[in-house]
């Protein structure tokens, strides 16, 4: 148990070290003695962290909702004809870099948080939608028939049989989406969305290594922590079903 917690502990410590000025400042002074400033002055790091998490969180949550909904609709008898189209569209969209979507959202929404959330939403949608479809389709048809034959109506069958069995795959999709969200939100700083990327960019502009490292390290830690969190969730689920 303790061994399992070793990793998130390290990640959290590093995150805290970069985000809390009283901890970071002395450390940075030692590492980069030649810099003029050590802690990003304009906005407190904690606030940027909050923005970052909220941005990617909202986008991923919305994508999860819509993605699962569409995935469910498309796997119902009436929507089956749409599956090849959705699949191929998703495959094509996979080749588009997240940055491109982010940047192309600007002409539509202007700068700031709106295009970022939109782009993150769109990009999170794909893995979730794809995994929902795969997860629901790979269920043994014998189990589905047994459920119907038992007297379950379509809605009950979805809730009692299909979703629990598809859950591990769907969660894997949400995990991928969450990690991509957090990653792309970092670049969102370039279109004025706030978040930890702001510190990195400020560091690049001012040629300040302390800023760059603070921003980069904290962003990396957030991403790794989110990934670890989902890993724990998936492990729980695998224990339950399989």
């Amino acid at each position: 148990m303790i061994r399992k917690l070793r990793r998130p502990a390290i990640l959290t410590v590093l995150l805290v070290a970069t985000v809390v000025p009283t901890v970071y400042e002395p450390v940075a002074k030692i590492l980069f003695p030649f810099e003029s400033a050590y802690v990003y002055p304009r906005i407190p790091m904690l606030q940027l962290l909050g923005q970052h998490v909220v941005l990617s969180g909202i986008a991923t949550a919305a994508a999860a909702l819509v993605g699962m909904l569409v995935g469910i609709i498309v796997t119902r008898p009436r929507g089956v004809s749409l599956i090849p189209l959705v699949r191929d569209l998703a495959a094509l969209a996979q080749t588009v870099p997240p940055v491109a979507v982010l940047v192309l959202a600007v002409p539509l929404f202007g700068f700031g948080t709106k295009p970022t959330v939109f782009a993150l939403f769109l990009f999170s949608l794909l893995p979730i939608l794809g995994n929902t479809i795969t997860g629901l389709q790979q269920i043994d048809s014998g189990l589905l028939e047994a459920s119907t034959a038992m007297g379950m109506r379509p809605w009950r069958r979805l809730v009692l049989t299909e979703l629990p069995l598809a859950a591990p795959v769907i969660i894997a999709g949400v995990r991928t989406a969450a990690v991509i969200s957090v990653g792309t939100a970092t670049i969102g700083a370039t279109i004025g969305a706030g978040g930890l990327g702001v510190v990195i960019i400020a560091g690049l502009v001012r040629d300040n290594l302390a800023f760059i490292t603070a921003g980069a390290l904290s962003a990396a830690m957030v991403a790794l922590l989110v990934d670890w969190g989902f890993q724990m969730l998936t492990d729980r689920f695998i224990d339950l079903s399989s």
Partner: protein
Amino acid sequence: MERAGNAPIFLSIIPAFVSVFLQFVILRPNRIADGTGYRLLEFGPSAAAWALLLLPLAGALLFVVLGAPGSPTGNNSPTGKWSPTGTCSPTWRLGILALWSVTVTVLPWLLFQRGTAVLTQRGMIGELGRVTPGAGFWLLLLSALVGWHELSRVSRVSQNRSQLVFPVAAVTAFVLVALLVVQPAFRSVSYVVEYTVRSERFIQALFEHVLLSGTAVGLACLIGVPAGMAAYRHPRLRETILDATSTIQTIPSLAMFGLLIAPLSTLSRAVPALRRAGVSGVGVTPALIALTLYALLPVVRNTVTGLLVVPLEIRESGRAMGMNRRQLFRMVEVPIALPVLLGGVRTAAVQAVGNTTVAGLIGAGGLGWFVFQGLGQAATDLVVLGVIPIVILAVLVDRLFGVLQRISNHGRVEVEVAG
């Protein structure tokens, strides 16, 4: 068996209809101004006539494809209710779908040209003025995309002779569009304007981009394939290697670049020899290192999976035949593992093209430079000029490796493992 559902066809027809009511052409006096949009119907009678052509064609499509009300269907509907699988013969269906797809592909370009011509006639495009395609244009293109997808799917399922329909229709559309695009009217398209202004820089950026991503993938293969083989041979090592590469993948690209800048800067400052060699804190060095690291995971993971996928029986027969280690590797393991490995390289390459965009932020050049310059100046045309080639590049790379995969697999069904 593929269901002949009509939902995709609806998805193709509806955007086409909606596009008529949206802006088709946006005229902007210079790079930054927002400009005014013009709808299809404002281009005069000939444009309206085009729109009217759309409607009956779509109607015919709907009728023929959906079938008349009350027509009996097969299977499971003894009550004879109207069910949208239609009584249309497959060949007619194919033909009409092909006609629709070609029309909807060529139409937006025709209409765009018409719009530009009208605006030029009215003398509204000044010296710095440019024309940008509007929502209507993109929506029609979306319609076309869905239509083509449906056509390729249906023609694959249908009989032998109809196998020709898709390629013929595709080539026709392509030729027609190419003929339109080379016309002088298109010179005032905003993206073309931007390009002509800085074409040298563009080509340089394109070159940098390809070089950077290509080198990264190449290095990743050089390091990754042996690493993968080591991981395969020593299961104890496997978990560590896979865990490490997967951790790297989780880190956001900009953060990764950032994390490398500090140590590299310090290093190059401390060791002047390195600095003279070109290693520095920002620019190509951290970008290349980061890109290579990112490309490692797909390559390593797929090398391991590819080798694992070789069936035990085949391995044993090889050994029973008297093959030594090297022969076994060359004649058995490599041919079977190769398609999987290529799949990994494919993923790595596509991701690399995307990640190289961000490299533009830290001064490594590439098409990302255009993107972020455009963002900084709030000039969306510049941004699009950077982004579209990146997307096209990514798709091309993906398709190319897909072909390579299929060749290495001797035409069998694609083996897609890992990500």
